[in-house]
């Protein structure tokens, strides 16, 4: 009998978080100025999902991790240079827009289609991982929609921990209101886990892992199918950068007691 998990991680690239972004209107809808030139990183919450997946796989013999990424091929290739050394995975690339303005419904369709084509994926052992929201669309919707398309009825959002019992039961801790966790037990895979930060630090680069991954990455990029991502019926009326409109008053060279009084009064007001 096969053992271990088949973990499919959904994750793609987003513009570096420190980058200032400017919207532009293109023929197919809004986008980012110089989008293809912007430095990109693996979407942070999806990156946590990948690290958790690799950790889980390392603890359960027979497990395997796939990273399913939808993005422009050339940008995906660049991204792989920085993440291939982090964790062992097999890349499944889908060539298409990684824009936050692309519709979640169409993105989910493309991703589910790519997962259905993965050779050797055992859906009864499937853990579908992803981030709890992207740093692009920032909606927290795609992972659940892919789960639905794959017929998975056990789903978790904003998870920080997944424990596996010896009998195969999975315990998931999800972030809920008030800084608490909701604790659930699920009988086993298949299930969907969209991760918050998890508990693992970013793994150090491992050149050996990088070399192994790279063998599969180039062919995966070459055979990446393209996904047109229709956004039927959606019209963006405007896209703008939120205004920074505070006039900051700087208080300095004032006795601390006066500052303390002013702040205390403000808090109590």
């Amino acid at each position: 009998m096969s053992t271990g998990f088949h973990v499919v991680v959904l994750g793609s690239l987003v513009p570096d978080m420190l980058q200032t972004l400017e919207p532009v209107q293109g023929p197919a809808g809004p986008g980012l100025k110089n989008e293809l030139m912007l430095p990109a990183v693996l979407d942070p919450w999806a990156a946590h999902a990948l690290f958790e997946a690799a950790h889980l796989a390392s603890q359960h013999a027979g497990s395997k991790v796939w990273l399913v990424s939808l993005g422009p091929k050339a940008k995906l290739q660049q991204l792989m240079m920085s993440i291939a050394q982090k964790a062992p995975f097999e890349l499944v690339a889908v060539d298409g827009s990684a824009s936050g303005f692309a519709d979640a419904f169409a993105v989910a369709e493309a991703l589910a289609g790519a997962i259905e084509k993965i050779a050797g994926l055992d859906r009864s052992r499937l853990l579908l991982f992803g981030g709890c929201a992207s740093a692009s669309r920032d909606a927290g919707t795609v992972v659940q929609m892919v789960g639905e398309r794959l017929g998975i009825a056990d789903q978790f959002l904003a998870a920080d921990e997944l424990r596996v019992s010896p009998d195969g039961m999975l315990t998931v801790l999800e972030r809920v209101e008030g800084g608490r966790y909701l604790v659930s037990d699920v009988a086993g895979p298949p299930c969907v886990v969209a991760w918050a930060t998890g508990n693992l630090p970013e793994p150090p680069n491992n050149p050996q892992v990088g070399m192994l991954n790279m063998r599969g990455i180039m062919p995966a990029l070459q055979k990446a199918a393209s996904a047109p991502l229709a956004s039927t019926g959606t019209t963006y009326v405007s896209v703008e950068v939120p205004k920074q409109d505070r006039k900051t008053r700087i208080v300095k060279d004032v006795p601390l007691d006066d500052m303390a009084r002013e702040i205390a009064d403000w808090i109590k007001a």
Partner: protein
Amino acid sequence: METILFLAHTDDDGALGRVALEALTGATQLRSQMPGAKLAFGILGADTATATQSASGCGADAFYAVAGVDFAASRYASDAAALEAICRAAGATIVVAPATARFNRVMPGVAQRLNGRIDTHVSGFTVNGDELRVQRGFYRQRMVATLTRSVRPWFLTVDGGVFQPWAGASAAVSVQMLDVTLGDALRRTTVTGYQAPEANAQTIRPDANLLFVAGVGWTKKQSDGQVHLDEAASAILGFLDKASASLGSSKSLVDQSSEGHNVFSFMSHLNQVGQTGATPRHPKGLSTCCHGEEPHVVGWRFIGERRAINLDANCGWAQGKADVVYVADAFELVRKITKLL
């Protein structure tokens, strides 16, 4: 003609939570702005009677409920089945729901089942003729878009703080109780309860008037060349206690804890605000020993009045991000403020 369906779940005490009541205001406003629109009310929970009664005066044309022990806990499989049934029974074309943790998890899947579209964390809507337009943030609040969709049903989840909570007298209404039966395949998950992340998780108080944010400066060498962690911890906790404030943190500070360094036992990454953390809503915010860098300030998007204490007069807060910056040593100043509270 649109049929607007408001969806809610009961809270653990059987009532409607604040965010749900706020979203209900949004749904009723929307109905009044859309010519000829119908409003339906749908709810799920162990016992939905109290919650339905409390909102019965909202003017909905129809009320639907899925109730029973199977629907008490926040579980994807049963929630999705119940919400799908309500949406179908109501013939919803627009669905308005609160962005609670429970609904954030399930609503995208329900939209998928109904072949609909979804926009989450909606921060407002306007009606232009008979066209509904919604606003929401993209790229972790670095951009705001206004958009409209023609595909139905269109699901909208509304964050807390956008509308005033709905309030009104009760009315006599008849509720259609929908029968949703769960097979074993939908009971594979059992919710076993809540867990506080660490000993002092109560530092996160969503209803607090003030968000107090600690930055990495609290753990840095101070003017005497020493690190003062115990003093920092007692200054922060003392303040939180007196001010009944909620505690936020910069990423750098909580990252230090997770790397196993010294730092504060009362804070975890759940406290982190910012681009990769939380974006809480509070009327006021006080930042201390934190630089106010862009990815951090994203977490302050929904903080009304903002003040900061920093040794550096040129810190990020001074660049139009805070209303007032106090150039001072936070160790001393925070202790003094605490005494006055």
